[in-house]
């Protein structure tokens, strides 16, 4: 083709992630069957799948959910489903997800000019924007009025409850996937903007650094890191044994401390690509710390009063049969996922650590568990980890390689991806709980 004057593009990315060296993926990525299966069903193995394949048991239920969400029977037409996801991904400036869903949207027969800007889309889709915005950044602000505006008899255009819940799950699912994409530093696919080049590789071209700083740092760092892991393990054991009594006040203070601890996440980044920006209304609306003491104070959500197991599941299952089952499975797989190892240690019970991560994210979203002592979050999650988790969960577009490499320096990459999975699912559940509660109130 070169002779005929056709330019042949060249893929830029040297692996699925710019955080994780490609050769590590090969070493750690074992299970081939799941990749074959996903290749057969999707026609390609994208970077997202490749990274998730580090945790095959999760990947298989994740693919099932995605299939059900985008392909199987549901109240929304297929092109709409992808368009809603495009809108959701645009909120987090995630051009990876935007392009993935744009392609699928066109494949499902969607109109191309919708992608050029929100104003070309039908009014019914545009009416989702408020919900999309809140769901992405401050789900605790969603009230039954928001639901009512879309669903009630006078609303024009009107959403049915089943359509709405489908759209909500699509949006929440995509938002949390954006967190994952940013948190794992996904490279653009070879067919994405920025994923290829027409320039021939220059001899002096140095591929982007694929080494983590941990490897480059001196020996002293290595030793420190090893000590950190030891300390963490000791603390976990201690926490499990300790039967500490503390007062109600103390518990509240601990929760508040975690919630309000200032974790610097605002890093200024370049403006998002035009491709993404034209699909976002009010781009300046971002995550803000959940502040129950503020003027129009939102109430803390008590996990015992509206839980996924009792309430959320039943509602989803009622309005969108089977979807509740799929999501429930996803949550369960993530909360039980463990390989009983930490960094270089085998046979470790990581339950407390996983629980602390999960509850910390819910805490950032203003969900409180009566039966959890938030003191342990402080004990188990080091500051660099908190920075990473809060960035990925709340401002995913600001994740940088430095933040990624700074925490858990001696852990495997697969373990960091595991942490990302927990962030993603916890975030999904938090956003769903707030919206489902609003829907329940509306239905009452």
């Amino acid at each position, binding site marked *: 083709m070169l002779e005929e004057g056709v330019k042949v593009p060249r893929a830029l990315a040297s692996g699925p992630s710019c955080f994780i060296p490609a050769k590590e993926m090969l070493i750690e990525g074992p299970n081939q069957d799941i990749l074959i*299966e996903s290749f*057969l*069903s999707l026609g390609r193995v994208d970077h997202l799948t490749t990274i998730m394949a580090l945790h095959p048991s999760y990947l298989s239920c994740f693919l099932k959910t995605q299939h059900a969400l985008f*392909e*199987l*029977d549901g109240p929304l*037409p297929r092109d709409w489903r992808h368009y809603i996801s495009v809108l959701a991904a645009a909120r987090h400036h995630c051009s990876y997800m935007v392009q993935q869903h744009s392609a699928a949207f066109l494949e499902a027969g969607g109109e191309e000019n919708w992608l050029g800007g929100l104003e070309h889309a039908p009014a019914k889709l545009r009416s989702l924007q408020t919900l999309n915005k809140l769901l992405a950044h401050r789900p605790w602000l969603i009230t039954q009025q928001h639901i009512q505006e879309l669903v009630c008899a006078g609303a024009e255009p009107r959403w049915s409850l089943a359509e709405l819940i489908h759209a909500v799950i699509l949006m929440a699912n995509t938002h949390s996937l954006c967190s994952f994409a940013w948190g794992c530093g996904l490279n653009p696919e070879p067919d994405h903007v920025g994923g290829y080049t027409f320039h021939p590789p220059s001899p002096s071209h140095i591929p982007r650094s694929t080494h983590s700083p941990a490897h480059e740092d001196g020996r002293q760092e290595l030793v420190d890191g090893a000590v950190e892991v030891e300390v963490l393990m000791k603390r976990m054991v201690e926490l499990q044994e300790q*039967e500490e*009594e503390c*007062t*109600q*006040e103390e*518990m509240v203070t601990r929760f508040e401390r975690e919630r309000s601890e200032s974790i610097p996440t605002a890093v200024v980044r370049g403006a998002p690509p035009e491709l993404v920006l034209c699909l976002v209304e009010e781009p300046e609306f971002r995550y803000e710390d959940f502040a129950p003491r503020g003027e129009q104070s939102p109430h803390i959500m*008590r996990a*015992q*009063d509206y839980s996924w*197991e*009792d*309430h959320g*599941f*039943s*509602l989803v*299952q*009622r309005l969108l049969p089977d979807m509740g089952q799929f999501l429930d499975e996803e949550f369960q797989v993530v909360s039980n996922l463990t390989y009983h190892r930490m960094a270089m240690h085998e046979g470790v019970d990581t339950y407390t650590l996983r629980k602390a991560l999960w509850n910390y994210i819910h805490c950032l979203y203003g969900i409180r568990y*009566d*039966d959890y002592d938030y003191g342990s979050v402080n004990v188990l999650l080091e500051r660099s980890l908190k920075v990473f988790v809060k960035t990925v969960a709340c401002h995913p577009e600001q994740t940088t390689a430095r933040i990624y490499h700074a925490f858990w320096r001696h852990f495997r990459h697969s373990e960091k991806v595991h942490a990302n999975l927990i962030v993603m699912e916890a975030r999904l559940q938090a956003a769903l709980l707030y919206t489902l509660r609003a829907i*329940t109130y509306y*239905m*009452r």
Partner: protein
Amino acid sequence: MEKMSRVTTALGSNSISGRTMFCHLDAPANAISVCRDATQVVVAGRNIFKIYALEEEQFVEKLNLRVGRKPSLNFSCADVMWHQMEENLLATAATNGAVVTWNLGKPSRNKQDQLFTEHKRTVNKVCFHPTEAYMLLSGSQDGFMKCFDLRKKESVSTFSEDLRILSAPNSVKNTISCFTTHFCLVIFSRGWLATGGRDKMVKVWDMTTNRAKEIYCVQTIASVARVKWRPERKFHLATCSMMVDHNIYVWDIRRPFIPFATFEEHKDVTTGIVWRHQHDPHYLLSGSKDSTLYQHMFKDAMRPVDKANPEGLCFGLMGDLAFAVNESLVSSDAGRKPYAGGDRRYPFFSFKKPNPTEQFAHVSSALSVFETDLDSNRMDWFVKTAQRYLLSGKPFTELCDHNAKVARELKRPQVRRRNLDRQIKPTKHVFGQREENTRNNAIMQLSSINLSETSSSSLRVVTTPPSSSSSSCAVPEEQVYTLPPEAFQLRHEIVDNPSAPEHLQQDKADSPHVSGNEAEVTCLTPIESFSLISISQPLYSPHLHASFFCPIVREMLSYYAEQGDVQMAVSVLIVLGERIRKEIDDLTQEHWYMSYIDLLQRFELWNVSNEVIKLSTCSAITCLNQTSTTLHINCTNCKRPMSNKGWICDRCRQCASACAVCHHVVKGLFVWCQGCSHGGHLEHIMNWLRNNAHCPAGCGHMCEYT
């Protein structure tokens, strides 16, 4: 159970009395429990923990257990239980994982007695042992059940949560209730165990044998939150749900389809139900998230059975009519004449022995089936017209022509007329040259056509004109003179035809015959009237817009639809398209479409029904095609479902759906024999079976291709 009744006070002389009543609580309730003598009830929730006395007319607050300026989370209760022997003893399950006991006999304001913090997660349920006074059982989300001995201040045994806990209560002898994390909630009674959960089912298990056997199952409409057996009624239990549904249902488990009684007072989900006294089935207490506490009298309950329709009526596809009704009603109807020929009464096939313990009236029904006469013309016309009508793909006039021809061939004169009528409109536009006032005449004419077509009574002649009266105020005298005779004449013709030919839907039972020649007679009238228009009538002035006819067409369509001929209405609607659509409101259109599609599908005219769905402009109709769009494929080799999208079955690793002739994978139209399940490319199989009788796969089956 026997042991229990010995220790409890039997319902004696001081029997309970009261009425349906309620009181407002300050906060949503999570659980309620009553004390042994049924005089007090404790209500517990996140922000409430109070004891109310049950008096004759009202609830009276007795005690607030929630004390302190900032009560600790130990007061935030998920469940509460009043000891059934020890009047002063209560136990609560706190959301922070604590199990707390309270002693009302304490002199201080804070009645907290003991605190067990052995559970790691929220405790869902607590329960006292019914006979061993010091045993307390609790279940938590951490997956453990613990049994506490109140004298020892610690748990004496722990059960890990599993299905095995179903049998655990056996070892603790007659424990009445226990729980699991989210799946079921378990109630024990007389060797029967009732479980309910988020699978929306209440199941009753027989625990008397070694293996638990499911004996009854009640389907509810929402996830089940609580289940309580009704005292003194072996087969009754009360349920309330966790989400969405706010009612309390009492079921007779032998009749699982309709609740025996319902209580509909609550405005938010009911969180706690308890029978007031364990030997009195007439009082039910309930607490709810809507912050109210109710006492329900059983006699005030809604009985859905009473509202159930005791009669059933259904049309068969071919016009048969089945009718089931209480037998007593039928026999008392002495004036009823048996229908000659068609009426066949089918005997009621099963009869259940009345069980005196069931509180259901026994109704035996008579089922009558009226069959239509096979000779009279049947629904064939429906099928044929449906198949042959063209709804799209050609210019408007051609479509009209075609459809009119179809109608004529099938001897459905009215339809044909309609199509002719449709043709009139464009022609009128072309020819119209006369003065304006003549148009009224034409309208009258048209409405009289309308009447003749609809074969309605002559009264319609009087009623129709006003519909177009907006322009008829200036009718010159002479025109008026010319009109009546025509209308009169037409009317007479109709009167001469005694039976309406096409009222198949309604009149089948009484008018079995529609003679062919009557149909021909009616067939003549329209031509006359049509010629009247085209020859003697002044034609339309050119400025008369097509929309001028819309009211008439609309009326006509409604008439057809009302007569049961939705086929007509929908076909006209589709062919006329934009010309008429905005005249008819969306709901009506949707209704017509739905009925027509339903009919088409009952006749298995899938292609036609899909075409109609595709051509319709109602969003509610077009989205019918968006559901169930999945095609499930089974592998031809191993007969298992193919889970992935490729052409290779992942179980037997072979190409699924290979053509039996060319042995390549078929991607596209696949035809297969339903006898031997071999098949292949449509073309290949057609060619093969042209020359051979046997299956190309060599299985020896004599395949047939039709």
